[in-house]
């Protein structure tokens, strides 16, 4: 069971790798198409901007590879944003796996932008209730609530903290930085997906 972490240039690669290692999974950080396509799980970590992640994926010729993946895939933060059609961050066309757009939080609603810190995530379905917890967020852009939302949190309004479309899971928070809660979330990804 190999986990492929896609190297899309972000700075949190080592943190994500470490978080996977403590789940007793074999893990590689890679840009190689075959390694990604043959992995049991794929993680698309994201730090930086939607534009920089998309440019990196384009340069590595991975756009079509990612769209065709059939194993469980987890997009983290910007890695979740790029699963959507479009992100308002630098007007970026994204992968289009999940329909919808990523918007910017509006600081005029008495909330601070970026959202930075621990926010409470609530899951709707009974089977995910055990994952209700505080997770670490660091983001200015977000996905609105939709039919694909599994878990939500509040920052001026409700936003999607976890989304799922078929085999693609996305989380707005950083499980690799969310202490015990993040560890449990990743355990769930590897064992229940």
């Amino acid at each position, binding site marked *: 069971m190999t986990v492929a972490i896609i190297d899309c240039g972000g700075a949190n690669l*080592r943190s994500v790798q470490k978080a996977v290692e403590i789940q007793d999974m074999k893990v590689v950080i890679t840009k190689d198409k075959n390694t990604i396509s043959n992995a049991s799980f794929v993680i698309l970590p994201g*730090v930086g901007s939607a534009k920089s992640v998309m440019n990196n994926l384009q340069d590595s010729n991975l756009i079509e590879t990612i769209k065709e993946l059939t194993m469980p895939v987890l997009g983290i933060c910007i890695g979740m944003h790029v699963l959507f059609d479009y992100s308002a961050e630098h007007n970026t066309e994204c992968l289009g796996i999940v329909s919808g757009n990523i918007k910017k939080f509006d600081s005029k609603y008495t909330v601070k932008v970026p959202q930075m*810190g621990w*926010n*409470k995530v609530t899951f709707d379905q009974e089977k995910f209730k055990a994952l209700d917890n505080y997770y670490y967020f660091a983001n200015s852009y977000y996905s609105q609530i939709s039919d694909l939302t599994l878990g939500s949190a509040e920052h001026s309004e409700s936003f999607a903290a976890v989304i799922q479309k078929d085999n693609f899971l996305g989380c707005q928070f950083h499980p690799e930085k969310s202490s015990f809660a993040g560890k449990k979330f990743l355990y769930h990804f590897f064992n229940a997906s």
Partner: protein
Amino acid sequence: MITKRIIPCLDVKEGKVVKGVQFKNHKIVGSIIDLAQKYSNDGADELVFYDISASTEGSIVDKEWVSKIAEVINIPFCVAGGIKSIEDARQILNLGADKISINTPALNDPQLIQILSNEFGSQCVVIGMDIKLIDGQAYLFAKTGSEKTAFATNIKADDWMIKVQELGAGEVVINAMGQDGVKNGYDIELLKSLGSICSIPMIASGGAGEPQHFIDVFKQTNVDGALAATIFHRNEYSINQVKKELQANNINIRI
């Protein structure tokens, strides 16, 4: 809603954690890794490591300990001290830090804030503001890692607060230098006044000596987090104890 953050600050000098009073007379309080682990297990929401030798001696922080911290904790942490360029920042972030904090280099070259924010995202870019009142007016201080090098600039705190937001800073740490290590409580007036012109996360620093000081700063100002060193280093109160008191006072906190 996002919770208020409790952030232990570890001043690092020559590879050890030290603590001074009003930015001088630093004493060794322990090993970086041991304290990072301890605070993380005790419920710290994030950690700040400030390399006080780097900022005054002109070197970038010794990188080895940054990657060691990233190996042992799974909460976010910020590194400050001696980061002067996009390359310095990249190095620290690649070693596993989540944020970098800059003070003097931003005062010397404000465009650096914009460059860092565009490259790494504003959530990575923290501006440390070391502030002292001169004739009733709050001014920025530079090179504050050592008493010998610290000096007042002619930049007013409220002007700088507006400017760093325009340039794309993701967070500010307001360090009231007069309060540092003296445990009289945070500088509520300063934080209120700067908070009224701040739409990015703002962290209070300097003066925490007892749980009531954290309650006061969260009740009386709109800061998003409170940074503290002495109170935790001396084992006077644990982070968990402080958080329980905050919770008992209806402050939204992660426990």
